[in-house]
């Protein structure tokens, strides 16, 4: 299992993601600068949270036009695993790799707290460590996590079972309380909550750990 974390200017959960991945895989996880253009050696590519380009213009918009994005698309097309968390999720939607957009939170406030999520499916490389319908506690920390799509897309992703996680108590106004979505093929996951923040009991919980353990096992 070879994993890497993409670093954009002002990514800031890159180290957190690296720590979580290294903990589960037991292997060194590379940091890849956004100017690079080759990801061919990796099984898993993680696009971390943060404020790439200051969240200016639209969250994720400028990062989605970075040189590395070509390689990220290739990786996804090839069936490689691609995980976008928070700003990473925003970047993947801006890049068209995942459906929908993330708008400003309904109350216009940044929100940082643990939220409860329902695991919508567990037949993917990301969620096989959970049970379907399981409630897990994962932190959110974002200003723009309000998931939105047009009706047609919404119907489609709901119909395809592309919803990965839902909020139990919607913190940001997301449509259908959607906290994370897969692409059709199920090898790309984007989610607003930060599973990498709860992989260590000392930090108050380990509900994020099964995701990284499953990825480490699945892609081994």
């Amino acid at each position, binding site marked *: 299992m070879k994993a890497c974390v993409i670093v954009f*200017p*002002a990514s*800031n*959960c890159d*180290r*957190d993601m690296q*720590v*979580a991945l290294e903990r589960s895989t037991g292997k060194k996880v590379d940091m890849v600068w956004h100017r690079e253009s080759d990801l061919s050696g990796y099984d898993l590519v993680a696009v971390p*949270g*943060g*404020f790439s*380009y*200051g*969240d*200016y213009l639209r969250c994720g918009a400028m990062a989605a036009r970075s040189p590395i994005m070509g390689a990220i698309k290739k990786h996804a097309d090839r069936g490689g695993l691609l995980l976008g968390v928070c700003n990473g999720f925003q970047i993947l939607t801006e890049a068209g790799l995942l459906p929908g957009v993330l708008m400003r939170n309904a109350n216009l*406030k*940044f*929100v*940082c*707290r643990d939220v409860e999520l329902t695991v919508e499916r567990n037949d993917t490389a990301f969620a096989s460590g959970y049970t379907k319908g399981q409630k897990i506690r994962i*932190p959110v*920390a974002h*200003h723009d996590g309000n998931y939105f799509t047009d009706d047609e897309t919404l119907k489609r992703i709901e119909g395809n079972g592309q919803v990965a996680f839902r909020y139990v108590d919607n913190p940001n106004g997301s449509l259908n309380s959607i906290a994370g979505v897969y692409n059709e093929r199920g090898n790309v996951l984007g989610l607003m909550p*930060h599973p*990498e*923040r709860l992989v*260590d009991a*000392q*930090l*108050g919980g380990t509900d994020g750990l099964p995701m990284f353990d499953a990825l480490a096992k699945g892609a081994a």
Partner: protein
Amino acid sequence: MSKITPEIVAEHGLSKEEYQLVLQIMGREPNITELGIFSVMWSEHCSYKSSKKWLKTLPTEAPWVICGPGENAGIIDIGDGDAAIFKMESHNHPSYIEPYQGAATGVGGIMRDVFTMGARPIANLNALRFGRPEHPKTRHLVHGVVEGIGGYGNCMGVPTVGGECEFNKSYDGNILVNAMTVGLAKANNIFYCAAAGIGNPVVYVGSKTGRDGIHGATMASTEFTEDSEEKRPTVQVGDPFTEKLLLEACLELMQTDAIVAIQDMGAAGLTSSSFEMASSGGVGIDMNLDNVPQREQNMTAYEMMLSESQERMLMVLKPGKEDMARAIFEKWELDFAVIGTLTEPDADGNGHMVLYHKGEKVADLPINPLAHASPEYDRPWVPTPKRETLSPESVAAPTSIMGALKTMCGGANGSSRRWIWEQYDHMVMGDTVQRPGGDAAVVRVHGTQKALAMTSDVTPRYVFADPVMGGRQAVAETWRNLTATGARPLAITDNMNFGNPQRPEIMGQFVGAVEGIADACRALDYPVVSGNVSLYNETNGTGILPTPTIGGVGLIDDVSKTVGIGFGGVGQAIIIIGETHGHLGQSQYLMEIIGRDGLAMEDGAPPPVDLALERKNGDFVRGEIISGTISACHDVSDGGILVALAEMAMTANIGAKIEDVSGQLPLHAWGFGEDQARYIITTSNPEDVLERAEKSGVWATLVGTTGSGELTIGDEHSISVAELKNAHESWMPDFMSHPEAH
């Protein structure tokens, strides 16, 4: 060149005497650029002219202090080659004028102070003081300040883990925004500001210079009047994105051996950074302003020297390292420009700052006289009159004890600050072990089992009533808050927010507070390693409550041993450490329930602080935490025992049954009195704890047991934890949900 008239001198905030000194130093009339430089260098903000004399009396040394006050931030040794670097700084005036940008740039500035020295910031705290909730501007200010702090810190990816927020009429026209940053560095890779090496290049990095905040530093040093809203264009806009890049680029360059000296451009931008570097190094600088990266057209030398554009740094590099350094900054997409060279001091040993612009010499200033011979005042002061101690019996009882408790927990100053800290990313960087809401935040040293505990505290009404005692209390409270997590308190930073020092009674508050802080630091082995002074916090002649904010940092050797404030489970014994005398003078009970404002002599003296007792009780509690015998710990401060118990109950969602042990005291004095040096702990092993307390000569009383959903005292007084919590959690969101204009 325009002549320097008395009006121009006055506009620059220089007194007649100060201008005479300028003439004497220069041996001629200065030009406008030179005058501008004098004015910012000698502003209260940069020169500490009113406070210097007193600040020198603070204890600043301990075996673990690597660097005390004087540099950008203080540094302490935390073992294993690690150092913690921290400081607090105010951005009060700018935040009143433009709360979002004022607070944001305050956070940006303090982070630069810390990473200039080679540290990666690992935590931010913020101590906020606003006017009364009913004041028409308060809501707008709270909104903007909190959003600005979050906007900057969140983008930087540095967790904001703690702080304080208080509402009081005295801040109606003068809010306080004090921001603190704690960073981590390797003790053998710390960077200072002293320039050295004649001929070495002086390099500018970061954002371009615009006409931002020109005269910001002098603005922060003059009293506010109604027309100061006119000074608005001096507000700077922060760019946290650029600062994040600057942070990464600087830390990357710091891994090489290229840097001789580095200094951030804070207040008074290029002027103060270049003068500080040159004066600490005893050298001169020739600077070519044409090379300064500029955002706007036709900037004058005056404007460039006084601009407070954010996200900039000045460095002296070793010769030949320019290209390597440039490559790093360009990778991070930042400006990099060689703008000067270090020069020999003259025959008298004075370095000169010589500025060139468009081929002309536009300023030539001797450095040391400006930096060191700046005025130092021994301002007249009068001691604050002593107040009587109120007897417990003299303060009226509430109609209902639990009703009073609910009012206090659900009031403007007793309610939860969740509304604030949920807008701050307090978990990023993956080491926040204790999140906001407890006594002190606990942040792990990355990759180790060590952790730093940090907190900020001050009780301004105590300081007003008795500056010496209030100063002691502020230090003691931070020490207690750190202790309550199991940390060994190591050092403090202070942020002295006061009114107009030209008024003897205000100066008296300052002098008293410094004395009290110094007492406490000495007694607790807890020196001051950095700080900041903000004077003239006064509108139309009314000063703020004296507010010496103290930021404390402590070390936890094994983070698995730390405890929080939530009751540690059901069926645990509750023990109060420290003796209760029912001190209600200046108490939160007196303010919130009796409705006093604390200003009148009849509102009494604040609780006395016995520093030896603080130390004894605190050392005992810390020992118990470290040996793992207790499951929760909370210090007793505002609101006394009952508020502390309520906070422990609400945090854990567990009630408690408390015996009425008030004895001779009225129950409300027992429950709400604010005697110092006390803690509440829970344990499953009360006999052992009590026995050890007795052996150590520490007053400890078993008062009850945790459990159920009610908080009950004796047979008569009871309230559900859910009801308390609802009151506690709803005040701030309710208050802030009203629409506000600006």
